[in-house]
């Protein structure tokens, strides 16, 4: 509950003199597109090589500090390595541990706000739905729901509303619609680690006994 309340104070920040937009639904989407596993699966941070970690950290800072129009245009046409390269050259003094700590702090706030919907017994389930039903994307679904509930603009929801708060508001919308919301399951990487251990204990010969 403390983390949920802490998210209320989230907003634009500053690191090493650079003004940073908050981590938001929009920047989470960019993190996915650019493969920032450090942000998407922060529990894997220790598994990422030092060089890759530094690259991801610089990318994270660039996408949150450069002009939004410049970032979006570069990501859209795939030319982001040019402005990012220039930024990385000029910002080589960025202190990695402090950015990592910031990513970890925001990730904790986001994790605390994540929920998943529990299907209600006796209601129509996925099994009964036609197999060709299409679901909207994660970002579009959240923005649509929050815009419908609040009237806030798409731009605000995508780029200026801190993700940790957006998720809490989305949770409010789910509960207002009487959805049953529960804590999500264990992080994906933790699931994989456990499954890999179990799988390693299986061999075809043992299976065959």
């Amino acid at each position, binding site marked *: 509950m403390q983390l949920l309340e802490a998210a209320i104070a989230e907003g634009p920040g500053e690191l090493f003199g650079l003004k940073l937009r908050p981590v938001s639904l929009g920047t989470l989407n960019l993190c996915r597109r650019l493969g920032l*596993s450090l942000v998407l699966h922060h529990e894997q941070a220790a598994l990422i090589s030092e060089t890759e970690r530094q690259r991801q950290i610089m990318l994270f800072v660039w996408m949150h500090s450069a002009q939004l129009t410049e970032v979006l245009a570069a990501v859209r046409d795939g030319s982001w390595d040019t402005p990012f390269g220039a930024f990385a050259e000029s910002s080589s003094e960025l202190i990695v541990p402090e950015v990592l700590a910031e990513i970890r702090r925001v990730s904790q706030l986001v994790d605390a706000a994540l929920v998943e919907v529990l299907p209600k017994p006796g209601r129509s389930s996925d099994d009964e739905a036609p197999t060709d039903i299409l679901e909207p994307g994660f970002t579009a679904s959240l923005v649509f729901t929050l815009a419908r509930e609040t009237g806030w603009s798409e731009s605000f929801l995508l780029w200026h509303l801190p993700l940790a708060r957006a998720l809490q508001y989305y949770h409010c919308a789910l509960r207002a619609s009487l959805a049953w919301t529960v804590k999500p399951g264990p992080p994906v990487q933790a699931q994989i680690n456990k*499954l890999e251990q179990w*799988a390693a204990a*299986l061999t075809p010969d043992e299976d*065959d006994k």
Partner: protein
Amino acid sequence: MKEGQKVQFVRDHEAPLKSSATPMVAAGLASGFAFAGEKPLLDTLEEVDGAPQRTATWSLDGGITATFRPTFKEETIEFAEFRRRFESLEWCAANPDHPIAYLRAFSDKLSSLRNELRAMKPLLLVRRGRRFALIPQDATPEKKARILSELG
């Protein structure tokens, strides 16, 4: 699988090499039924209530029927003759409706399935919310990361 195809699923929670579903599927194939596609088995390992759960799902073409014709005469034979017939593919091909031909076909199908199963490893099934991903055990870290990024 093709659009509109009727599929019969055979699912259980045993490793396919141990499961009684595998001989049953082999018996079905020997009887003339067929798989629904080129990848007829989905073998997964996932965590359920803190424990590993294996799920094997075979997909068979539900639009196929099998005909069993009792076109053989009652007879009494010794084991040597049973063995001769069982080991002779020519005899089995010439007497496709005979029980011995079925037994031979079943034995061949089961051996072939088991050989394929020995080379297979279950996919790791991970869930995030209502989405799930299937990860091959030998996936490269890059492929794994790509699959996970689809999960959101």
